[in-house]
């Protein structure tokens, strides 16, 4: 693999050899990765892997760490205020003072983020509308449900239209409809060029949103890359699965097809065809189909076997455990 060398790339977010210790417990070991401008980066890992610690280092909430972190060219350890102007952050368990209404909280955070009154008056209704919170604008946040509070959390993170969004488990505790809404918003922001780093335990959500994924396990970055890159690192050869209506005797002859590396018969009517490295199923499926039809094979189904993010994730995390 694997962990990137951040010095080799110019990213909007650059973490270079970041380590963090809590007493005797080493939470992060030389974590390095970069995120390009406009990229949506999914950060996944088991509980206690160090995701939140990484995010707190990135946001400047933890300043006692080893290594270097820069955002938009600014060093977080030396130019925190500059970084904070670029940053929107949604913590894992977002909390507000109990007496605050949504309106009051957003106005305060807007002012603290440097917005003027006109900008605040313009942004708040837009965000409340976007997150379906307009009806509860003057309600106390302490009276809202967890999901609604999470929405207010996202609203405060988006208030000043930040260049970088850091979201710690943004989809946790949301109902399916709200999750869908959050994902749409993040995808839309990504299209507009906002750089997004988010962590999640819900791997299907990561698969839906992220351009690239970083897998963290026990404080170490195990893999960074697009989902396809991670899959191909695990299994560099595409596999095509063919299911037939009945037994097919000539299955071994499929090896003669160009770009086919290996053929197996796990069941009498099921054939697994492993392709050469670099060959894709799109390229070879047609040849396989033609051969099977020509030789009397009665095809029930033919499909490329693809690893899910769950399988990719588990492989890398299990690797750490072993």
């Amino acid at each position, binding site marked *: 693999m694997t962990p990137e060398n951040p010095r080799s790339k110019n990213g909007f977010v650059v973490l270079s050899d970041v380590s963090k210790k809590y007493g005797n417990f080493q939470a992060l070991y030389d974590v390095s990765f970069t995120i390009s401008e406009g990229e949506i980066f999914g950060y996944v890992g088991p509980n206690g892997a160090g995701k939140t610690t990484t995010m707190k280092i990135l946001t400047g909430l*933890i300043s006692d760490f080893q290594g270097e972190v820069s955002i938009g060219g600014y060093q977080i350890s030396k130019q925190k205020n500059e970084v904070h102007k670029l940053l929107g952050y949604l*913590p894992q368990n977002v909390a507000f*003072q109990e*007496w*605050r209404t949504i309106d009051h909280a957003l106005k305060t955070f807007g002012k*603290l*983020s440097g917005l003027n009154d006109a900008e605040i008056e313009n942004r708040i209704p837009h965000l409340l509308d976007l997150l379906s919170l307009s009806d509860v604008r003057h309600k106390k946040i302490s009276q809202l449900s967890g999901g609604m509070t999470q929405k207010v959390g996202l609203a405060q993170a988006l208030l000043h239209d930040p260049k970088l969004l850091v979201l710690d488990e943004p989809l946790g505790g949301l109902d399916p409809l709200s999750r869908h809404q959050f994902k749409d918003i993040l995808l839309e922001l990504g299209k507009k060029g906002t750089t997004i780093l988010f962590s999640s335990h819900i791997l299907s959500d990561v698969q839906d949103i992220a351009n690239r994924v970083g897998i963290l396990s026990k404080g170490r970055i195990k893999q960074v890359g697009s989902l396809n890159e991670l899959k191909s690192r695990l299994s560099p050869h595409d596999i095509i699965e063919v299911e037939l209506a009945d037994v097919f005797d000539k299955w071994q002859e499929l090896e003669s097809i160009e770009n086919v590396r290996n053929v197996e018969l796990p069941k009498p009517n099921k054939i697994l065809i492993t392709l050469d490295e670099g060959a894709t199923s799109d390229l070879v499926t047609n040849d396989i189909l033609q051969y099977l039809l020509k030789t009397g094979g009665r095809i029930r189904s033919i499909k490329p076997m693809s690893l899910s993010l769950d399988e990719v994730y588990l492989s890398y995390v299990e690797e750490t455990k072993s």
Partner: protein
Amino acid sequence: MQLPLLFIDELQGFYKSKVMIFLWIGLPIITLLFRFISLGATGQAIPFTVISTIVVSSLAGTLASVMLSVSIINEKNRHVYELFLIRPLKRRDILLAKFLSVYVCIAIASFISIFVGMLADYFTAGALSGAILSEATKSLATSLSMVAVSCSAGLIIGVISPSVLVGVILTLYGGNQIAVIPLVPTLLNISEPIPFTMAIAITVCVALLAAAITLFERKQF
């Protein structure tokens, strides 16, 4: 400089969470109750003004330090500060805003309490004597000096305490003892002790504030 914004915000918080009402109405009510209790117990009609200064000096400091330490510990443990600290503002402004807002609230409550005492005396006994007024003024100055020290002690206890319970214990054990430091000139029978009391209070208060801010700046959230 975000201090004015945070200060007004904190005051709004006290107003909306009804802390102000309890303080501004509660302290005068306790003063009146004290007076009636002492009248019933001793048979002597101690002037309301004297009672109110005693109540203010004994309660205001404790209220201030407990309010501050509990508020900070609670917000710290609920991770409320994270949304503030990721914005371009100085950490010290968060603490100073809390300090000033609590101090102002308690100071107003003290003024109201003593003013109510004076009004009560005026309506029950007629014009107030010069001696009582002078004592009330001195007592108020001493109380406000002690409140300033209590506030700064509450601030530092709030920053270092891991839980509300520990914070309250430390406040009651330590905060109240520190708040007595400005009384040293009075205890030493120095003539005209008030200027010394205020000077000591300012010195101790600034030292504790500086320590609290330093600890808060270093805190990892």
